[in-house]
């Protein structure tokens, strides 16, 4: 039992923590509604300069030559920063916890590995002058073969994206190219099964699209310190990352943040702070580096793409006998946090169900896409989508109600999980029961009486017979169809001549309506 030393903060905290049902105001609410909350970009410092980066137009290319001569003469330019100016121009975010090898430069030097990778930074008196100088930089590229698909990246002979990981896979514990789970014997489970269902699931990258884009302002302070106003979600993590990249003790950096205009995981990557601090170091002036909306959407890390293959062996009475996973995480060109996402994914398999035979391999794979990062439950979200789609399909296959089917397979206290840990404090059964009740979804009485408690829930294999006869068609393994899949496209209809256009209707003049006018004004001609 965990011992809580409540005496230490006894005078600071009321021990009565019954807060549910009582509204408690956010501490920053007054600032929000009076528009006085101070985001990083609301700091205007004397003599502030503006930093912008040149981004690669190629997804994979060798950099042969960078010509800055014209850009250096551009009006308003204070300093041009190249990779060689970055004290420690190779980093990986989780190196702070000794996880993974440094694989990503702050500014690319010899090679670019994704479209939009920063190569050169310009510090100028105004944003406009920074952009004008960027347009005068000449870079000579030698395009290289690209890979955008995780399965292609694993094939022998695929182009090497990131030389730190020559097999295009993140290396775990210095040896393994993936995370694995081996529990029981899936092949025996499949052999004993009445049905096999093998499916492929895929999730596209998802952009966080915070309303406030990433950015930071850094300014020189007394005793060689730098004060940094930042949008980061991870203040101390960013501080330590900057200390490493800039090769300064962390006590030289004073980070101020906490008021973040939406993050959702997209503001943990420390993309702007190292450059704005370096800009302040090299010019002795405050430097602001704010990512533009277009850059944010195209080149800042999204939730990564994932491809997931699940093969299940299931008994006629609804018990899942074996489950096999192959999860391919698209990390993009650099690791960022995808290595950790794969670990989280493996820890989550096979979902909250007790399955006696589980086999899983989870890969973190490098491609020429924009590096992926954290986003709301990353590592788990996509695989849960896949698992629960699969559960619906399996229920359909054996003719069971999807909620009852989950109750049959839900883990219970005392069950052995695939990670060889005993399930404790489980509550999936109770959750499904409450969800069914709230949704007015009828489940049968035996299922209403089930419990997660070891002694109370009855024996799992004595599942009641299915409502209807199971589908006994001997399906081939592979991409099988169930009623949950989209139907096959109908044969094309013969081309008929289009019907004559209806006579134009007299349109009444649209009534003024504020939001609609403003919104359509962006794309239409009615802008004020």
């Amino acid at each position, binding site marked *: 039992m965990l011992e809580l030393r409540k005496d230490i903060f006894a005078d600071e905290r009321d021990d009565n923590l019954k807060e549910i049902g009582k509204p408690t105001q956010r501490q920053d609410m007054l600032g929000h509604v009076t*528009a006085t909350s101070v985001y990083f970009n609301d700091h205007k410092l004397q003599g502030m300069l503006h930093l912008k980066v040149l981004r690669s137009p190629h997804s994979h290319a060798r950099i042969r030559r960078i010509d800055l001569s014209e850009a250096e003469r551009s009006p308003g330019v204070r300093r041009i920063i190249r990779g060689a100016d970055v004290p420690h121009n190779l980093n990986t975010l989780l190196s702070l916890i000794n996880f993974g090898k440094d694989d990503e430069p702050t500014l690319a030097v010899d090679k670019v590995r994704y479209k939009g990778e920063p190569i050169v930074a310009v510090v100028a008196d105004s944003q406009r002058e920074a952009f004008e100088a960027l347009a005068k930089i000449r870079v000579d590229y030698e395009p290289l073969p690209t890979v955008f698909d995780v399965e292609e990246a694993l094939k022998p002979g695929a182009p090497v994206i990131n030389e730190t990981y020559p097999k295009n896979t993140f290396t775990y514990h210095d040896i393994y190219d993936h995370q694995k789970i081996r529990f029981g014997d899936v092949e025996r489970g499949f052999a004993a099964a009445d049905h096999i269902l093998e499916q492929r699931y895929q999730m596209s990258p998802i952009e966080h699209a915070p309303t406030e884009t990433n950015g930071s302002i850094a300014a020189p302070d007394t005793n060689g310190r730098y004060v940094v106003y930042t949008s980061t979600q991870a203040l101390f993590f960013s501080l330590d990352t900057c200390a490493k990249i800039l090769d300064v003790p962390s006590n030289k950096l004073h980070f101020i943040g906490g008021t973040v*205009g939406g993050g959702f995981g997209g503001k943990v990557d420390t993309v702007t702070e190292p450059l704005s601090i370096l800009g302040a170091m090299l010019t002795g002036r405050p430097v602001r580096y704010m990512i533009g*909306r277009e850059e944010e959407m195209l080149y800042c890390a999204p939730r990564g793409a994932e491809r997931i293959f699940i093969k299940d062996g299931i008994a006629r009475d609804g018990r899942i006998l074996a489950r096999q996973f192959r999860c391919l995480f698209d990390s993009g060109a650099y690791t960022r946090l995808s290595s950790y996402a794969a670990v989280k994914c493996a820890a989550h398999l096979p979902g909250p169900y007790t399955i006696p035979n589980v086999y899983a391999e989870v890969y973190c794979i490098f491609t020429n896409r924009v590096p992926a990062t954290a986003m709301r439950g990353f590592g788990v979200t996509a695989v849960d989508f896949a698992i629960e789609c699969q559960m619906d399909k399996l229920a359909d296959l054996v003719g069971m109600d999807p909620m009852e089917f989950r109750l049959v397979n839900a883990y219970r206290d005392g069950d052995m999980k695939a990670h060889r840990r005993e399930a404790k404090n489980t509550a999936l059964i109770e959750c499904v029961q409450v969800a069914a009740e709230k949704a007015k979804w009828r489940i049968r009485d035996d299922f209403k009486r089930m419990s997660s408690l070891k002694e109370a829930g009855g024996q799992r294999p004595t599942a009641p017979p299915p409502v209807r006869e199971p589908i006994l068609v001997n399906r081939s393994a592979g991409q099988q169809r169930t009623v949950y899949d989209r139907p096959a496209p109908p044969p094309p209809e013969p081309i008929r001549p289009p019907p004559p256009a209806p006579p134009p209707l007299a349109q009444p003049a649209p009534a003024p*309506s*504020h*939001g609609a006018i*403003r919104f359509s004004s962006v794309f239409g001609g009615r802008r004020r």
Partner: protein
Amino acid sequence: MAKTPLQFRHNGREVAIFVDGGMSLLSALRDEIGDHSPKFGCGQGGCGACTVLIDGEPVLSCITLAETVAGKSIETADGLKTGPELHPLQAAFMDNFAAQCGYCTPGMLMAAKALFDHNPDPSRVEVIEAISGNICRCTGYESIINAVLAAARRTERRA
């Protein structure tokens, strides 16, 4: 670059500034006047975080040329309350927890104020339409809609 003198009313106060050709109203407000209440979200008229009122009508200040507001009256979220008392919309946003990160809030408030000034008793559909040009990425739309409706009721009681 040539600068142009520009005079307009800002939250009831006459202001005069010099602007660069092509400067947006958002830049003029934030950088020249120092009113940081309109926010930069996209700079292309997509998100509504920069919404201000020009002569009572909501506009996206990031795609409005500063020079076009000469002689007009601009209202921003900073001018919503004049004394210690919150504007009914601000109070309702607080009571209904209608802000999470707070970045869209100034724009939401101004879009809602424009609706209120024309229509003190809006329907739910009218509220939704009024804020349809404002993106809340924390997706707190329900509480924002409820806040605007609650503000309408609050104003009614006072009248």
